[in-house]
């Protein structure tokens, strides 16, 4: 039940616009909790004699559940669903997104992986706690999963064109909404699906008097903003927030409505887990796998510019890049951070 309910709270178009369309302190996991505890769901839980809080706790995991601590068993059960290394949510979205996007990057032998998952003691020095680990025979499947995730992030999820359409969609929904945020009332929230948004999007794209017309038209006519700047390791070494600095200066130069920024970094990557070897010893995955030790962390920074300003902006950036990203004194750095 917890696994089935894990994604109930997603907004239309999933993650695309979550951060800006929900009030402070709200995210899709909190909405998942609200839906699991709603009157409609309570009647189901009652009928099958399940406590809604038990489902909620396991469904969203300790990172998002703020109403109590986790026992070892609860932590393990939740890890099976939401875990960084072998969570079924991760396995599912990689395989499904690969299939529907027509790419092979996210495919791995999930049958072998699931067959070899074990609850194992994770030692850290002299402290031991139970976590999900794997038999040595499944290590290559685990490597394929974690490499697959990296490839899916770099090749598909983080593709600059895919990302800018998320931004245009978010801009459209924000302009189209009559309120500042989406309703967090469960009944109202569940009324809004991808279909309602798509219908409104096409209507707005056709009619310049409608709210969100410009963003909707960009999506429908494939007239998206173009990349002005993308993350470069040399720049990151000079200024961790190089993209942010460029964005701020570009906004000053070309106007806020013509510039967009998108920054993302992969969260904890789950590359370290215990492995049960053929001779029944338990060893860290990083000791057995050179691959896992070296899988990079997916990270992106893009600054986009309106097509009309692209040529001028590119020239401006080429001439001023070094000055813009130069790290400034302590007080001034605060101004460019978010």
């Amino acid at each position, binding site marked *: 039940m917890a696994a089935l309910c894990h994604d109930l709270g997603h907004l239309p178009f999933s993650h695309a616009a979550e951060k800006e369309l929900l009030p402070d302190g709200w995210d899709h996991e909190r909405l998942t909790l609200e839906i699991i505890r709603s009157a409609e769901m309570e009647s189901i839980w009652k009928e099958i004699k399940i406590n809604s809080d038990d489902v909620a706790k396991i469904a969203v995991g300790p990172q998002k559940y703020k109403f109590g601590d986790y026992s070892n068993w609860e932590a393990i059960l939740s890890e099976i669903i939401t875990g960084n290394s072998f969570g079924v949510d991760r396995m599912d979205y990689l395989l499904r997104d690969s299939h529907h996007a027509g790419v092979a990057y996210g495919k791995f032998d999930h049958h072998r992986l699931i067959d070899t998952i074990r609850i194992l003691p994770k030692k850290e020095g002299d402290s031991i706690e139970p976590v999900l680990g794997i038999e040595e025979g499944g290590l290559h499947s685990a490597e394929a999963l974690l490499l697959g995730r990296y490839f899916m992030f770099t090749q598909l999820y983080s593709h600059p064109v895919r990302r800018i359409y998320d931004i245009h969609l978010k801009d459209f929904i924000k302009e189209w909404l009559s309120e500042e945020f989406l309703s967090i009332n469960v009944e109202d929230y569940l009324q809004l699906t991808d279909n309602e948004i798509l219908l409104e999007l096409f209507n707005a794209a056709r009619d310049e008097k409608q709210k969100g017309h410009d963003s909707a038209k960009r999506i429908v006519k494939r007239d998206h903003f173009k990349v002005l700047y993308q993350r470069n390791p040399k720049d990151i070494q000079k200024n961790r927030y190089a993209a942010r600095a460029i964005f701020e200066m570009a906004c000053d130069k070309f106007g806020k409505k013509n510039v967009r920024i998108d920054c993302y970094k*992969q969260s904890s990557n789950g590359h370290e887990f215990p492995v049960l070897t053929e001779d029944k010893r338990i060893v860290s995955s990083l000791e057995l796998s050179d691959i896992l030790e070296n899988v990079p*962390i997916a990270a992106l920074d893009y600054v986009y510019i309106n097509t009309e300003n692209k040529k001028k902006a590119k020239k401006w950036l080429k001439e001023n890049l070094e000055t813009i990203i130069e790290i400034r004194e302590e007080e001034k750095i605060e101004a460019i951070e978010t």
Partner: protein
Amino acid sequence: MKRLKRDAVLLSLIDNLRAKGSWCGETHIQKATYFVQELFGTPLGFEFILYKHGPFSFDLSDELTAMRADMLLKLQPQPHPYGPSLVPWEGSNLIKEHFPSTLKKYNSQVKFVADQFGDKGVAELERLATALFVTKKFESNKNIESRADLITKLKPHVKLNEALDAVRTIDEIIKISSDINEVI
């Protein structure tokens, strides 16, 4: 605290822990950061819950990963049974150089935590950090025995005598840190 300043404090904490002989696995850094934040009220802004090996912050875990992506930290594998260390990497000095006032402001807190906890193993850090967590969460409960009892319930692998020692030690550390806070 803004993120770059917070990064500078975290990097300084890692430097100080390493100087005291810590192998600086993520668990060490998690617990040391918890102590810096909770003993002194340092505004690092991490939310800690009671999880693996005691108080744990998913935000901090994500931030450490982000710092690796941005070449401020590097993962260094260690022989079994030790987990990998996180060591300062190419961009770390630049960050520290740009925040002298911030580092000076939090230097006493960072040094105190490194001095007190830098040489401790994960199991002892787990007990001490859980003792602080229990003490702060149930502030009305000053009784040493009942706090120790609670620790053994939350962490069944911790023995009662170990929990009692941890609560007594953390009470002393809280007292010293309060004195330092007054001086600051």
